[in-house]
């Protein structure tokens, strides 16, 4: 459980010293110099003195907070701070925060904030902060940021649909195509829906503080045009302990709702508080702060334009004390006054007893607890909470619909929609209630989660489910000309690779153990063309075909592998049936009252004895730094191409919606 997000390291950089301080030092006086140790928005100019690359980039009029951490000379308080852009003072109040700061700062350090700044002037701008100490000395530092111009005069995109395959790299897409379509003589028999999008780019996904991102900055960069630190969404790092007071960056949804009246829809197969949906509408430095995140969805819906929110995560919406509630004061927030007044948002409250479902319905939302209710929901705003946390994955949902698995029922939520069904319903609601257009983000969330588990069949079927949702979005765009659809991923997960195919039938595969399981991997010519049979519901009849596709992992932890589909969505496929006695010869069960006793079942796939040693500690695979493919369809698709940064996507979306695209 992510209890302590890794703090963003403070970049220490001596600031320019005032003449008085320099003179004191020259005279040999032991006067410690004050420093600006953080200047927000972040810039390479501030951190290293180099003007490039440009780190912070904004659309004209896009709001963001200016902030600086000032560590004063020993014993000399900071009494005021001012910001200037291109030498011109920035009007408006600057708040000095002296409490709730992170440890390790000098005594009397302050965080100076000027909230909700915006510039309409395209170009590179110099940002300067000047702090005044009680003795009259000043401390200053400079950085830069860029406002990127919008080219006017084109036909504007009215609707933006972002299809986000979490963790979906090139290999995930390819594997889904092999499974769903099949190949013959080197050609795919049919394309995935995502294969038909005509414009393609490769996207660089690094975060503000690492080459390997997570879903928070991985999503946020697409929709706010800036880098964020891992675990953080819609904010820059700061030096306070509060996770919700960080300097904000306005999201695409907020920007377009404020300037054009567009609405926002968020659809996911994950818990709705999870990073990808949240990083479209919620501002926090702690992606795990569930109570506050879901509260902010509602409390700032008039800023984001949110009218559709569907996925799992009901546990955050139940009052604390209700069976199943995960709400707590520790994951909630109260915003500082300067933030609330400048951004025009409510302060919130640490209110774990809040009945958030009731508050949503009181605000005019229709609540749907399952697919049946989703299908029949009326009204202009739709809240769907279909599971306790993450929804069950496609393989298990389809097996439940086919009557071949009890996994979904065992979780207690038997009537869960598929992602394509959720996407279709979201489009209906958005289309009917968005005269000025909408932004929809629909996430295939468990491509990533099952890739973490190195459960190949489950992420492949989740990718197929995601492709079916893409087709729904594409069909909408075909009949609504001013719609742009992009398919992308926040990052690649697990280093998945299609290493070949089994050289034996499934029956023979089940008899293999140890090195025999390694020897069945058919490489090169021996891989041939695995052929899966697809049922009318659009999914494979079975994923354990003869000569099946085999997946390896480059960012893996240790695992046992038998190449066969796991009957359960995690470890351990050994599933004895009713009436089957315990195997003779095994040790007797040993129990003692009040003690834990092992009944000694093997790890997932351990029975085959084929251990694949991973590069990583732990039990799950990890994200990688690989570039990921982006595909675009519809009006504005031509804006995407080449090798781009994930932040560049935001500016293409803004260009499409604000400046338009020439025919």
């Amino acid at each position, binding site marked *: *459980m992510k209890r302590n997000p890794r703090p963003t390291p403070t970049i220490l950089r001596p600031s320019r010293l005032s003449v008085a301080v320099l003179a004191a030092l020259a005279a040999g006086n032991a006067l410690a110099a004050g420093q600006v140790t953080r200047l927000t928005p972040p810039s390479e100019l501030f951190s290293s003195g180099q003007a490039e690359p440009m780190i912070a980039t904004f659309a004209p009029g896009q709001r963001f907070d200016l902030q600086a951490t000032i560590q004063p000379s020993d014993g000399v308080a900071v009494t005021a701070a001012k910001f200037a852009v291109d030498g011109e003072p920035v009007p408006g109040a600057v708040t000095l925060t002296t409490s709730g700061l992170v440890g390790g700062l000098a005594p009397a350090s302050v965080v100076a904030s000027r909230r909700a700044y915006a510039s309409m002037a395209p170009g590179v701008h110099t940002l300067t902060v000047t702090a005044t100490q009680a003795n009259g000395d000043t401390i200053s530092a400079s950085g830069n940021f860029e406002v990127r111009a919008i080219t006017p005069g084109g036909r504007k995109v009215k609707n933006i649909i972002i299809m986000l395959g979490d963790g979906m790299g090139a290999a995930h897409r390819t594997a889904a195509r092999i499974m769903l379509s099949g190949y013959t003589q080197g050609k795919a028999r049919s394309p995935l829906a995502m294969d038909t999008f005509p414009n393609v780019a490769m996207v660089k996904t690094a975060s503000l503080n690492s080459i390997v991102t*997570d879903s928070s900055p991985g999503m946020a960069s697409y929709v706010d045009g800036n880098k964020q630190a891992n675990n953080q969404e819609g904010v820059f790092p700061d030096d306070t302990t509060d996770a919700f007071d960080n300097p904000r960056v306005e999201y695409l949804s907020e920007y377009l709702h404020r300037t054009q009246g567009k609405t926002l829809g968020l659809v996911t197969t994950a*818990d709705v508080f999870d990073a990808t949906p949240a990083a479209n509408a919620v501002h926090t430095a702690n992606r795990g702060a569930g109570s506050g995140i879901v509260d902010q969805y509602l409390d700032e819906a008039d800023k984001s334009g949110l009218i559709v929110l569907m996925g799992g*995560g009901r546990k955050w919406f139940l009052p604390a004390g*209700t069976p199943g509630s995960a709400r707590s004061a520790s994951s909630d927030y109260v915003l500082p006054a300067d933030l609330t007044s400048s951004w025009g948002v409510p302060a919130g409250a640490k209110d774990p007893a809040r009945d958030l479902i009731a508050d949503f319905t009181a605000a005019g939302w229709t609540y749907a607890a399952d697919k049946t209710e989703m299908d029949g929901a009326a009204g202009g705003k739709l809240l769907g909470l279909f599971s306790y946390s993450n929804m069950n994955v496609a393989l298990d949902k389809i097996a439940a619909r086919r009557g071949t698995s009890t996994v979904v029922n065992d979780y207690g939520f038997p009537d869960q929609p598929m992602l394509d069904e959720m996407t279709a319903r979201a489009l209906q609601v958005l289309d009917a209630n968005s005269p000025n257009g909408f932004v929809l983000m629909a996430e295939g969330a468990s491509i990533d*989660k099952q890739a973490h588990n190195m459960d190949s069949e489950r992420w492949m079927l989740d990718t197929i489910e995601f492709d079916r949702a893409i087709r729904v979005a594409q069909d909408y765009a075909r009949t609504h000309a001013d719609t742009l659809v992009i398919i992308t991923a926040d990052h690649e997960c697990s280093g998945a690779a299609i290493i070949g195919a089994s050289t034996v039938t499934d029956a023979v595969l089940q008899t293999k153990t140890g090195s025999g399981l390694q020897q069945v991997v058919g490489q090169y010519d021996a891989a041939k063309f695995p052929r899966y049979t697809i049922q009318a519901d659009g999914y494979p009849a079975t994923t354990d075909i003869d000569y099946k596709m085999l997946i390896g992992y480059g960012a893996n932890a240790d695992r046992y592998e038998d190449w066969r589909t796991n009957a359960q969505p995690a470890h351990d496929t050994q599933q004895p049936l009713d009436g089957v006695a*315990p195997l003779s010869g095994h040790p007797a069960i040993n129990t003692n009252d009040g003690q834990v*006793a092992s009944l000694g079942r093997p790890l997932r796939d351990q029975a085959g004895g084929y251990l694949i040693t991973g590069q990583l500690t732990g039990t799950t695979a990890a994200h990688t730094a690989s570039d990921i493919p982006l595909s675009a369809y519809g009006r504005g698709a031509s804006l995407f191409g080449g090798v781009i940064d994930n932040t560049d996507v935001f500016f293409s979306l803004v260009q499409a919606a604000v400046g338009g695209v020439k025919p």
Partner: protein
Amino acid sequence: MTKRIQNLPATLGALLLLALPAFAATDERPGLPPAPPGVTDLRFEEFLRLPVGRTGLEPTARLLALVGQRVRVLGYVVSEEEPTPGLFMLAARPVTLAEVADGPADDLPPATLYVHMAPADADKLVSHQPGLLVVSGTLDVGNQDEANGRVSFVRLRLDQPLAGAQTAAAATKARYGH
């Protein structure tokens, strides 16, 4: 100081029925010895009314009737990346959490048992134990903030310390052989 332990006694290789017979007031589970006197068998499917309703979870009358009683539960230890001293979770199905990547956006079933170790083991970590485990202790029901950052609803308090502790390195070697 925490000490990683291996659940014990080590009886690797035992196989047990997972798909148990339908609920009965007196539960006979093939392969599982009868519960000791004063201990009642409790199954995961008896925790909550299923399917889950429109809002929260509803405990069954059976679950509520056993609060404060000694019960025995059979399940799988939830695999965590960052286990918490003195606490582990048990579920009806094997669950792997990637909490470093995903935090509390997880695949835990609503019916998850939070097992609190005896006071003598409060500083010990429970290595992920593959396969089924049986645990016995005193049942507690009601929302409670846990040290692992989650909120539990059903808890079991073990009332005896665990013997035969292993170091983390030994547990890993026993698991993977290297």
